[in-house]
């Protein structure tokens, strides 16, 4: 179960290193769980550095007996939680720490990183890199195909950005809190058609940490426990031409397995946290998880359904489109879901939330991890 959650400072954090933000979040989450540094015996983390888990454990001054550095993009944190539950149940570790941070926004301002990712034209990438692919372009291709097959519109995609911003307006820590309209999204710059600037996630600094412990141990800890009722992962493609259906997220498979494990159906979910790297990511995820039928996502998101007052409150902190997005955002989905289930989401609490679903998406619809979480 989830015993501790915390974010480090996030947004614009020019005066901290990424490792410093890892430690800041880890210390807060371990304290939140009522535990101490030396209780941590499992570390789950990935990052841009080669041998990242080694670097992080060394920086934190811990020597965990169980280490997992699975790198599948932004969904890694849902994969990690899935793995941590298994490791704890098998007795391979007792206190698992999931820990993440970057200074992606400040690095861009300091000009020590580029905005787009230069993937060297070696191996399978040699069949893509010469054509100028971008991360946004990879997602935009899904939007183009969805529009072609189902008549989805840019205005419907814009609805998603508008509603995430409305949720962010009730989160004092969110980076962008001023309400926006569908017209604002549609009149923002085209980045990669049909995606506009406001269809794209923001870029922030920041980190987070989550502490997982056994059910037995949870009973003695200070905070209201958040139970992991279902967890599953799925992978699809790495190279775009290998994606069999550009309107289908692999969440179709991870969600089916996670819901089955939990014995829960989508219409029972009180609060939803899904990866929102781009508006199209949310739309494909809603369809794949079974919240609406395939092809009907455009109509489904109209009318404010995803807002705090809607029938399916989604990304209640404002998500990656408005609150924070340091690069691989999946950990923040778990933190916000747990916060809602504990009843600690001040100013944006979904009333009587006892069942939450989380879906992280990594790469370019390449990997998904789905979690079903519950409170007593």
């Amino acid at each position, binding site marked *: 179960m989830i015993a501790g959650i915390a974010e480090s400072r996030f947004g614009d954090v020019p005066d901290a290193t990424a490792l410093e933000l890892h430690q800041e979040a880890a210390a807060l989450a371990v304290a939140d769980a009522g535990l101490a540094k030396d209780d941590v015996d499992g570390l789950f983390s990935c990052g841009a550095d080669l041998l990242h888990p080694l670097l992080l454990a060394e920086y934190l001054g811990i020597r965990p007996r169980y280490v997992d550095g699975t790198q599948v993009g932004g969904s890694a944190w849902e994969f990690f939680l899935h793995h941590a539950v298994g490791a704890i149940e098998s007795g391979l570790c007792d206190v698992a720490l999931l820990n993440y941070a970057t200074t992606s926004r400040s690095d861009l301002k300091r000009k020590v990183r580029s905005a787009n990712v*230069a993937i060297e034209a*070696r191996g399978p990438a040699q069949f893509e890199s010469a054509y100028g692919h971008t991360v946004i372009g990879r997602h935009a*291709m899904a939007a183009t195909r969805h529009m072609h097959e189902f008549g989805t519109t840019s205005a419907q995609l814009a609805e998603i950005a508008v509603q995430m911003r409305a949720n962010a307006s009730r989160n004092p820590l969110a980076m962008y809190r001023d309400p926006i309209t569908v017209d604002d999204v549609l009149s923002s710059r085209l980045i990669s058609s049909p995606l506009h600037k406001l269809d794209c996630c923001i870029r922030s600094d920041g980190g987070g940490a989550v502490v997982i412990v056994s059910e037995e141990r949870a009973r003695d800890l200070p905070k209201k426990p958040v139970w992991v009722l279902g967890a599953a992962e799925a992978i699809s493609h790495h190279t775009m031409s290998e994606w069999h259906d550009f309107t289908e997220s692999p969440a179709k498979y991870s969600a089916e397995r996670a819901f089955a494990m939990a014995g829960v159906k989508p219409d029972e979910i009180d609060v939803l946290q899904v990866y929102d790297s781009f508006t199209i990511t949310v739309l494909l995820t809603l369809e794949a998880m079974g919240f609406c039928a395939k092809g009907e996502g455009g109509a489904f998101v109209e009318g404010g359904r995803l807002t705090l007052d809607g029938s399916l409150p989604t990304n209640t902190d404002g998500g990656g489109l408005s609150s924070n997005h340091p690069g691989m955002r999946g950990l923040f989905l778990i933190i916000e879901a747990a916060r809602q289930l504990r009843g600690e989401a001040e100013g944006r609490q979904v009333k009587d939330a006892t069942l939450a679903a989380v879906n992280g998406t990594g790469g370019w619809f390449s990997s998904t991890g789905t979690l079903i979480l519950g409170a007593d």
Partner: protein
Amino acid sequence: MPQMPKIATWHLPVPDVESATYWQGAREGKLLIKHCNACERHFFYPRAACPFCWSVDTSWRESSGRGNVYTFTVVHQNDLPPFRDRVPYVIAVIELEEGVRMTANVEGCSPDDVRCGMRVRVAFRDEARSEDDVVSLPVFRPEG
């Protein structure tokens, strides 16, 4: 973390033992795809073994070069050279007549005129790493 490439031709393919024939074919104006002699299916990108049945009994076939646009995007922003000077450009997934898909640029028409399902035909765009090291990149143009 992502950094600006150190060499200007970072984006150009680095052929390896599995792909050398493909790039040599492109230099000669042929689009070559892999065929599995065991399960009789085509596949892309080229691999030594068939991804469907793992047979290593594979051969090269010349594609008709005809296909249609499965999906695409018009890229308006890319801060990496050389693409920052090429925007807007079209990148698409092309479905070839043989049933395989590949990524490529669509050229020879206004980006605004590209549509899903549009019939296209292969052409080759030369880019040079140096005077004696030229790569021919398969790209697609509207047919007819």
